[in-house]
């Protein structure tokens, strides 16, 4: 595992609240193996994962590797490959604390953190069992309404670390996020942001107004490392497609503890250190 990737994952410590992006936004899959190696060495990582707003392979691998204490997510899915087997099993057995959400609630929680406020209100939710099982979400009467008007409040999601993958970064640490503004939302809400990039360029990404529009400024980025093909087996927008066959292969193997262990061994034994 490259020293650059190890340098990134050393920022992640047991018990941290970790933001991970949805599969089409740019998942730092290349960091998964270093993360598992680094945290397993520390024993019982107890990470609190927050999927923005849904999770997939990366979260499932971390759960299967025993590194997750809790997960907040709107859904866990491997797309065409079906459900996430390690998540399903861990939930069934009660091995991880579960915070079911719905996508806009996760966006609301991140926006509250972005704005430095304790909560953001949100419509919907009332009468849903998702709300019923979230003691941290409150329903109040809208103080600005003349008539009774219940509305839910979503608390700010303050995270320790955000981790994602992008097509391009520059030497200053500015990273291209394009239309994937949820990556900016993650970085705004996290103390530390770790980014892998297909490529690091010498030209400043802020040097022209067209390019600059889709850039997350270096101010919000703690560290960047190059990782070509870094999202695989997921695709990366504008760069390459995902590998559904690999996800199906994982889904099959990960259905059983032995199968998952075999997959993980193969995964961890991959490239030379």
């Amino acid at each position, binding site marked *: 595992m490259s020293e650059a990737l190890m340098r990134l994952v050393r920022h992640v410590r047991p018990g941290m609240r970790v933001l991970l992006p949805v599969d089409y936004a740019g998942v730092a899959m290349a960091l998964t193996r270093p993360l598992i190696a680094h945290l397993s060495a520390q024993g019982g990582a107890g990470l609190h994962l927050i999927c923005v707003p849904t999770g997939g392979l990366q979260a499932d691998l971390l759960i299967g590797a025993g590194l997750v204490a809790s997960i907040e997510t709107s859904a866990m899915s491997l797309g065409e490959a079906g459900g996430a087997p390690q*998540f399903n099993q861990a939930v*069934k057995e009660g091995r991880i604390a579960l915070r079911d959400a*719905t996508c806009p609630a996760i966006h609301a929680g991140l926006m509250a953190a972005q704005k430095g406020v304790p909560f953001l209100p949100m419509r919907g939710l009332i009468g849903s069992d998702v709300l019923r099982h979230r003691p941290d979400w409150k329903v109040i009467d809208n103080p600005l309404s003349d008539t*009774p008007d219940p509305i839910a409040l979503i608390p700010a999601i303050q995270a320790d670390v955000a981790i994602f993958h992008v097509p391009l970064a520059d030497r200053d640490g500015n990273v291209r996020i394009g239309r994937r503004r949820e990556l900016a939302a993650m970085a705004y809400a996290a103390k530390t942001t770790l980014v892998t990039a297909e490529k690091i360029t010498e030209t400043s990404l802020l040097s022209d107004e067209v390019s600059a529009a889709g850039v997350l400024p270096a101010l919000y980025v703690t560290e960047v490392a190059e990782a070509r093909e870094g999202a695989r087996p997921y695709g990366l927008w504008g760069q390459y497609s995902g590998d559904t066959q690999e996800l199906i292969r994982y889904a099959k193997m990960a259905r059983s503890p032995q199968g998952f262990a075999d997959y993980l061994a193969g995964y961890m034994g991959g490239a030379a250190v």
Partner: protein
Amino acid sequence: MSAAVLPRELLISTIATLLEGVGHVAVGASSPAPAAGAMLARALAEEAGARLRLSILGSVEHNFFTNGSAELFDCAAQGRIDAFFLGGGQIDGRGNVNLVGLGGYPQSQLRWPGSFGSAYLYYVVPRVILFREEHSPRVLVGEAEFISAPGTSPEGVHRSGGPVALLTGKCLFHFDKARAGFTLVSLHPGVSLEEVKDLTGFAFQHAANVPQTPLPEGARLQLLRGRVRAEVAGSYPAFATSWGAELKSEAKA
């Protein structure tokens, strides 16, 4: 002689009818039939000089959003999304949907992916179309075990949207908000009322004589098999391919 209408073509055509008058419809990433239905509705709108916008979520090419994955929900919040589709592990007689699982909570013995955006979109999109090909008592239940999103809300709870219809591989129901219940409005060819009653775990209303779901024909069917099938191949290549194969084998029959 062209092939008889395929089951999927009936569904796609019915979806397009359900979308009449809509300006902007959002379709989830794993929904080929709704996407095709929206594409047919778009083609028909264009013939009539109107316009229908289609967002296919999770797609890069067929997604004109530029503000990340929050934008769909903001768009709906602003009243700019007229229609949305929802499936559901369970759909019950009051229109409640369960996307989370069965056999207890939080330790669901059978766990599904999760609620996605349903606990919000079900409340704010005016025309939510419930769509499940599988019509069985395990899907259409008397009471959902977990309510990802309720079919209706009490008076006084802000709600601008909700379910309007439930389309399955057997029939079409409309949803009556006032009654919080379904009404069977048409049976697909070859399906009887008794069969639907047997396979549906909730009570529903129906007229004495339930008509057949109209089949697409003539120009509409040509549009479906031509332009729409070509368009849907871009986002759902496997769906388009199997559709083409079915047409070939039907035409031979």
